[in-house]
């Protein structure tokens, strides 16, 4: 059966057999880099196409259907176009920062791939503070956005970047608290332990209502963190034309664009890991037969299925809701999400101490 | 109010006004100097003409005529105030402090007819570019490049 589970150990064993440990590690690093770059590219292409298709069907349209069967290669064609395009740098822009910014944003995305468990035993780096690592690194992307906005020497960009700064810094909080609820329930920051703790049921089912609230808060907060509608104030098309990437064109624009989708993938992957058990199949209490059938589905399929479901949810939000205003955005965070998530955390702590969860 | 009453009322405000009742509404022709006080009285006096629905200028080749269509949202009676201006130096007092809508309309008339509105807060070109020469809606305006004679 197709599964990613055994591959990593096989590769590791084979490498250790052939080379000395240092060499093996170096080769592993190269493989990981290559894999993550290609994953980056493929995810970008797939998610952009998915977004366009979802948008089209919600908007009673067909969406791209000219390039390849069902428009499959539309995004490939778009990427080719963007590569061919001239990347303009504005005359009075800060050239160094302007060119650096898209790579900063992209690098943050790539760093975040490290602790994600794509399947059973398929993880780049099972760091013991995985969740902390994710929430700290993900907040770095705001630096890239601020850099882009400032260096463009464009007022729209500056406004967009400043909005984005305020937004990401605020929503970091409630996203962090939502993550913490699961950490409290699990008692560990390590991703693999969090996944293992959900062997007999996902946290969203085991954790009662507080876990559901935490999940809702998490989805709202990460939608804002990734600058997606209804929180896309940083690029707010109808207000700031394109916000922080107004002046970018060609491949550098494409990098911002890809980074947005990679960020969505990552936050959804983390959401799936925390609340839906990552690669863990759906297990229901004592139904042995049912659990066995579920185990036959490869763990990578489980993981991708959950992640893409969350991605679809975020896309659904985008194509349904109007955009918030900048002060309402901050109101929502500081007056609603933050108090609720604090209260929720308290509730979870009580539940965890009293052992009320399953 | 009947037209006769309006006439009487306006004669007390602007003695030099002449009237014309051939059209749909009562037309009142006043001099440019009398215009502003008359307008103020029409807005704030017993007529309460609070709605200026059209402000424009007509070039009669010998003179320009400012045309103000006034109405009131309470009694819905419309009157037309006109003021003749000479063509070389058309100057008239602004009314944009009485009806705010006049600000843009007067700017339009300023660039299209060259009527100068004294005391207008922001008398600049609104539609044409800043270095445009001539007044396009005057009858003697010639633009050999852009105007196609059919």
């Amino acid at each position, binding site marked *: 059966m197709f599964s990613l589970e055994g591959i990593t150990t096989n590769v590791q064993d084979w490498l250790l057999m052939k080379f000395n440990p240092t060499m093996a590690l170096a080769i592993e690093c190269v493989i990981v880099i290559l894999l993550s770059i290609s994953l980056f590219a493929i995810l970008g292409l797939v998610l952009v196409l998915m977004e366009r298709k*979802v948008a089209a*069907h*919600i*908007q*009673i*349209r*067909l969406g791209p259907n000219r390039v390849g069967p069902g428009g499959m290669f539309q995004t490939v064609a778009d990427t080719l176009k963007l590569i061919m395009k001239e990347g303009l740098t504005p005359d009075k822009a800060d050239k160094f920062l302007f060119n650096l910014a898209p790579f900063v944003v992209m690098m943050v995305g790539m760093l975040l791939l490290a602790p994600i468990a794509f399947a059973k035993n398929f993880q780049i780096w099972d760091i013991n503070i995985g969740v902390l690592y994710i929430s700290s690194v993900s907040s770095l992307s705001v630096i890239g956005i601020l850099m882009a906005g400032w260096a463009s020497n464009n007022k729209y960009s500056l406004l967009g970047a400043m909005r984005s700064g305020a937004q990401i810094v605020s929503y970091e909080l409630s996203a962090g608290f939502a993550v913490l609820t699961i950490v409290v329930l699990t008692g560990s920051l390590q991703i693999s332990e969090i996944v293992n703790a959900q062997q007999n049921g996902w946290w969203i089912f085991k954790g009662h209502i507080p876990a559901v609230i935490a999940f809702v808060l998490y989805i709202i907060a990460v939608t804002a963190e990734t600058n997606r509608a209804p929180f896309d104030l940083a690029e707010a098309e109808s207000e700031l034309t394109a916000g922080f990437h107004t002046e970018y064109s060609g491949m550098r624009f494409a990098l911002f664009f890809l980074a947005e989708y990679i960020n969505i993938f990552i936050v959804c992957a983390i959401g799936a890991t925390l609340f839906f058990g990552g690669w863990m199949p759906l297990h229901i209490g004592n139904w042995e037969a049912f659990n066995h059938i579920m185990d036959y589905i490869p763990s990578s399929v489980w993981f991708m299925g959950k992640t893409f479901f969350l991605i679809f949810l975020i896309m*659904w*939000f985008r*194509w*349904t*809701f109007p955009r918030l205003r900048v002060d309402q955005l901050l109101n929502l965070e500081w007056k*609603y999400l933050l108090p*609720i998530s604090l209260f929720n955390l308290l509730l979870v702590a009580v539940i965890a101490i009293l052992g009320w969860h399953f | 109010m009947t037209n006769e009453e309006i006439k009487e009322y306006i004669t007390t405000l602007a003695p030099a006004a002449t009237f014309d009742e051939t059209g749909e509404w009562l037309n009142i022709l006043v001099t440019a100097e009398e215009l502003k006080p008359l307008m103020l009285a029409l807005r704030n006096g017993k007529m309460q003409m609070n709605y200026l629905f059209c402000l424009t200028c007509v070039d009669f080749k010998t003179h320009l005529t400012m045309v103000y269509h006034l109405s009131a949202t309470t009694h819905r009676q419309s009157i037309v105030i006109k003021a003749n201006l000479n063509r070389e130096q058309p100057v008239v007092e602004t009314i944009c402090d009485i009806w705010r809508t006049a600000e843009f309309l007067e700017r339009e008339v300023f660039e299209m007819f060259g009527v100068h509105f004294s005391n207008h807060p922001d008398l600049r070109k609104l539609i044409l570019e800043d270095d445009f020469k001539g007044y396009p809606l005057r009858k003697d305006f010639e633009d050999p490049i852009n105007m*196609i004679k*059919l």
Partner: protein
Amino acid sequence: MFLKEYITDVVTGVTSLLKGMRKTGYYFTHPKEIITEQYPDNRATLLMSDRFKGEVVMPHDANNEHTCTGCTACELACPNGTIKVVTKFETSPEGKKKKAIDTLVYRLELCTMCNLCIVACPSDAIKMAPNFEHSVFDRTKLTKVLNQPGSKIREGIE
């Protein structure tokens, strides 16, 4: 009291958002509702309204005859000089001189499809055709001569 208001706020807000999502979700799951027309793939089945004002044409019958007398009514009716009638004098076999059109020049790029020329025409020589694919690479191709080469006026039309 404050708490109650706060909670009702949150609940009504979330329900209103969920209602919207239900609507978009409905359309997402019902591809039947898609209204996209895949032009130009559907060109064969595309129905244009018979009254659609696309361009002015001059119908010719099988004998290559039209009914235009060259009266220039259409030229006068046109608001923006789209039509230019060039007339000539034809000598009939009996030796009588008769006015007829040489060319009827129609400039599609100036036309606003206002239909005034068709209304003005006393002999119904021109009509609107429901063509809409007018794009060309060269602007001069939009200046058309409506009467076909060698065509002449139908007998009995004055």
